């Protein structure tokens, strides 16, 4: 193994693989497992997964490349993802994006120099009744306004 920990390898073999009738189905959950451990999925991680599952690395890479939630390069400790689809757009998502940009000093798609925050815009997060919706790592923040951005960032910094 190049980058996968023994715990992850064990989890893939003992928890993920037995759930599925065919081995290829374990590719997505294994990619999730690796991202959870390392924060992103590197080429070495792809090779490791292929080795554990005994499938071609090309197949793992093909799958990885298709799905937007898998990070193909390192992201910040907190990945801020602002929904800009129509319902959020109507209720001011672009103002929220601007507020994050200004306070973090980064453009969309960038990470702060200290590696703490990455900022992205994303498509519908499926919580339109509580627009504007922002996903930060696994958590949903709802009813976000530009005024609330500073407080959200403060709370995140304190929890870091």
């Amino acid at each position, binding site marked *: 193994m190049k980058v996968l920990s023994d715990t992850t390898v064990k989890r893939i073999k003992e928890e993920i693989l037995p*759930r*599925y*009738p*065919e081995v*290829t*189905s*374990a*590719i*997505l*959950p294994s*990619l*999730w497992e690796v991202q959870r451990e390392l924060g992103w999925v590197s080429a070495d991680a792809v090779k490791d997964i292929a080795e554990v599952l005994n499938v071609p690395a090309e*197949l793992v890479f*093909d*799958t990885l*490349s*298709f*799905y*937007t*939630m*898998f990070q193909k390069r390192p992201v910040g400790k907190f990945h801020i993802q602002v929904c*800009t*689809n*129509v*319902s959020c*757009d*109507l*209720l001011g998502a672009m103002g929220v994006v601007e507020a994050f940009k200004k306070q973090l000093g980064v453009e969309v798609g960038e990470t702060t120099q200290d590696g703490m925050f990455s900022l992205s815009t994303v*498509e*519908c*997060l*499926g*919580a*339109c*009744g*509580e*627009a504007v919706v922002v*996903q930060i790592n*696994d958590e*949903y923040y709802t009813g976000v306004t530009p005024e609330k951005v500073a407080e959200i960032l403060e709370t995140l910094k304190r929890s870091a």
Partner: protein
Amino acid sequence: MKGEWVIFPGIPKKDRKSLNEYLAAGGYEAARKVLTQMGSQDVIEEVKKSGLRGRGGAGFPAGVKWGFVPRDVEGPRYLCCNADEGEPGTFKDREILLHVPHQLIEGMIIASYAIGANKAFVYVRGEFHKEAASLQRAIDEAKEKGFLGENLFGSDFSLDIVVHMGAGAYVCGEETALINSIEGRRGWPRLRPPFPAVKGLYGRPTIVNNVETLASVPFIISRGADEFRKYGTEKSAGTKLFAVSGWVKKPGVYERELGIPLKELLEDVCGGSRDGRPFYFVIPGGISAPPLTADELDVTMDYEALAEKGTMLGSGAVMVFPEGTCPVRVALRAIKFYEHESCGQCTPCREGSGWVARMLEDVEKGQLVGEDLELLADVAQNIFGKTVCPLGDSVALVTLGFLKKFREEFEKHLDAGRCPYAE
């Protein structure tokens, strides 16, 4: 109001999340009844009789779909529950996953029994961590109690449910793309036929149903198809979870009977306009449903009435826009979504969505000339019907819908050389 929280009372009350709470409300009695007293064909007939139609968007009769699974084929069959909930404007299935997960599990037990599946998957969109955890907790509880696993309710039927997380791909809400995604591949839709009911997951007979569809099944079994039919219309039977967002005072998820007048839903249920500004247009069934203008809002929320108006009920996701909203901006935002989500398999969709998006961008900036609107319509029209899945059709329908309903607004942009709505 008729049909108010009839099938999903646990959502507003938030009192049936755990197994004990669900059991106290009569939970798993429908599954017990099916496994101890009914044949699989009886179950299919009852669901057919109820008129329950797919709640994910397509509206195909659920019982009929189940009936497509060949009965004489040896070997495994699969049930897949579609919890991808990706259609912009839709946020109803997460309420089921969060507040009544056992109701979904019970529906899955019944559906699996009906089609003869001993293994089922729930495909949950990758962003739904909390929702997936809620469902997994419920699955673990059900397993512990013997409601999942071997010999359910003393029968010889076994069922195992696996939660499978997506990872950010709208197209995986299309059933054959979802199947590919469970197989661990890129979520490319498959050509049909063969239909999944004959050859689906791992090449085996497979049924894919939406969360709300499956979670409606226990009610149909325990209370009967006739009781279900007391709500809704002849062809759009039962109730529906409507997810209302945008410019209303009380956005949210509401269960009401199908056929509820749209105006009643917006005014009485959702409290009307946020600030009194009149509604300008409404998207009645998720972003892929063409818009209804202010003078088209006298419509009932059922499959037939909305189809007559050239749009659709879809997933029941209602998005409301007030006067002062630029329709070109909304159309552009919608098409950019499709451009981002096009899986790239079919050229008309892959290339066409980008062309349409760039032309709409130019419309918004007022940088096209009048004749170009014909070209825009032509490009959009040429995507329609030429792709493996309906994503490409949506690009065409949304573009043509906005262009037809708001032609004057498009022209105003071109005349002004800029967006007249921009400050």
